[in-house]
């Protein structure tokens, strides 16, 4: 066999091998995508069904299994928005944001300050205080409801948003504090020392150096708090008594038992609408959010 033949043979073999590999890769990834898509759809089905059902008529909801409505009926949205009360859902949405927005803002501020204190300053009894903070993570929220109710009652805060917002201004969300502390510990102290030499005081170090670096973590905190507060049902249920002040979560529930006959298409349509703010905020912040829970923000 001369040199040329040998090279040709090698090239042919090589090509065959590569083709086989490519085919196997193709089959592999095809299979993988199929399984993932299938499981993904299975998981998402309730949500897809919800979206479809919101366009169905009340009668169709319980008679067909498929998620595609026979005809697109927007009356669920239109009538649902009006609600059976004297207020429209606009009021309830505004109410929700009256709780959510201040709560998110005070949470981010208080959590950052508290975490900064724990992560960077020498405080007498710091270890003890920190262990108490962590211990509150383990405390079920429910056991606090009654004493808190009594306390807020004596403050004359019932039927206002204060009991829902003000506690967050004192960094009661131990989970967030813990999360931000962990982030802060990953930031080299040299940065703060360099900033001190550059002329920053403690607060400037926090606002000009640490907070920009902590941005992914703080966005995660804001996002979690936004979604949790948006979906909070028990808090408003306990503290808010006048319909005028109801947030979306309570209003939704109300539309289910306002009359003997439940307009399911309306309930479902409003549920879809209630999901929208969380989804929008999540997708807007997604990039930072993922950064926030996967890295400490500083590399190399």
């Amino acid at each position: 066999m001369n040199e040329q033949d040998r090279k040709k043979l090698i090239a042919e073999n090589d090509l065959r091998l590569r083709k086989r590999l490519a085919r196997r890769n193709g089959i592999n990834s095809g299979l993988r995508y199929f399984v993932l898509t299938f499981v993904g759809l299975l998981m998402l089905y309730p949500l897809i069904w919800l979206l479809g059902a919101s366009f169905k008529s009340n009668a169709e909801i319980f008679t067909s299994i498929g998620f595609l409505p026979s005809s697109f009926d927007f009356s669920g949205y239109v009538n649902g928005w009006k609600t059976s009360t004297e207020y429209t859902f606009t009021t309830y949405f505004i109410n929700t944001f009256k709780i959510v927005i201040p709560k998110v803002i005070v949470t981010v501020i208080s959590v950052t300050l508290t975490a900064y204190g724990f992560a960077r300053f020498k405080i007498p009894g710091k270890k003890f205080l920190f262990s108490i903070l962590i211990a509150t993570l383990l405390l079920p929220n429910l056991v606090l409801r009654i004493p808190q109710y009594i306390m807020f009652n004596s403050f004359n805060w019932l039927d206002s948003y204060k009991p829902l917002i003000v506690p967050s201004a004192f960094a009661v969300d131990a989970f967030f504090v813990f999360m931000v502390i962990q982030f802060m510990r990953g930031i080299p102290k040299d940065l703060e020392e360099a900033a001190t030499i550059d002329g920053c005081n403690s607060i400037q170090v926090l606002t000009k150096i640490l907070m920009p670096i902590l941005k992914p973590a703080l966005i995660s905190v804001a996002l979690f708090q936004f979604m949790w507060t948006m979906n909070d049902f028990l808090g408003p249920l306990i503290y808010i008594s006048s319909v005028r002040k109801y947030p979306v979560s309570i209003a939704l529930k109300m539309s289910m038992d306002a009359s003997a006959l439940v307009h399911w298409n309306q309930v479902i349509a409003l549920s879809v609408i209630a999901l929208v703010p969380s989804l929008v905020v999540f997708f807007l912040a997604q990039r930072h959010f993922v950064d926030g829970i996967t890295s400490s923000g500083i590399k190399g």
Partner: protein
Amino acid sequence: MAEVVLKSVEKQYPNGFKAVHGIDLEIKDGEFMVFVGPSGCAKSTTLRMVAGLEDITGGEIWIGDKCVNEVQPKDRGIAMVFQNYALYPHMTAYNNMAFGLQMSKTPKNIIDQRVREAAKHLEIEDLLDRKPKEMSGGQRQRVALGRALVRKPDVFLFDEPLSNLDAKLRVSMRVRIQELHEMLKAEGVPATMIYVTHDQVEAMTMGDRITVLNAGRIMQVDTPMNLYRKPENLFVAGFIGAPSMNLVDGEIVEMGGKVFVSIPGGVLPLPEEKAEKVRSHVGKKIKFGLRPEDIIANEVHEGGEGFVTGSVRVVEQMGNEEFIYFNAAGTQFIARVNPEQVKNIRKGEDYRFWFNLAKCHMFDLETEENLTL
């Protein structure tokens, strides 16, 4: 324009550990002072105390004509370059350099002028819009240097700035920092520089003077050459120089009016000058020290008595020189020789090694001080 003076500076941690034991040091205006020592010797702590990042628990620190014990770091007229650069990751190189000036409310046009000037010196003009993560280690360190430079400080503090760089970059940055020092001097605004390193080569090549520290105490402050030639104590003798000085147990003996030093492998006659210094120690045990290059390993050396016989264990060829490790009476020595002179030295064989005793050092065992200075 400032000298830095440390007066019995102490540092004791709340847990009782004393890191710095009363350091007295005078760093002249415009001087390049290097702090060197093994890890844990408090060289960084001392630097950080000068910077004001670390409280002092005793003594005084003076920068210029001001006692700065209670002065904030930003008002001390210092700038610091950190080991891991400490660049603000969310700012561009330009903003990193400008930040300190912005904090002190310097007018914008002056900031811009100074940043661009510094960037030109350090050849980082094309990096000004980049963030730290888009730069290499060497570029980051140059930006960090620029950040110090724009502040026009009286005192530059360097905390092992080159440790994170690879060997080649380290050499070029070393030169750059020295050039910077010279440049400031030439411009008529000499800056005092304090440079902490654990790297002897950096210490020896960069410093006008070197402070050798050990366990929170100053061992010796002197020029690089004096540290090498005239170590005041055992620690400096062993620490400065690579490979380090041969240090072996010995005894001073007197025979027939002549003074000898007895070390493993031989009894060597001391030259008159050295003999005078140690006559008071006759009969006492001492530490004998000799630099590897003062051991002459040559089979054809002309006579004399000052040799020991040792068997060669390892010959390390460095190209321009050779390190010969040999054993004499169970003690290991190392000689540094010119490969041109000793072509036939082979492992496992016995040779005579001549000791250049005019350059030997002898240390008191108790005080560890050099008796032969």
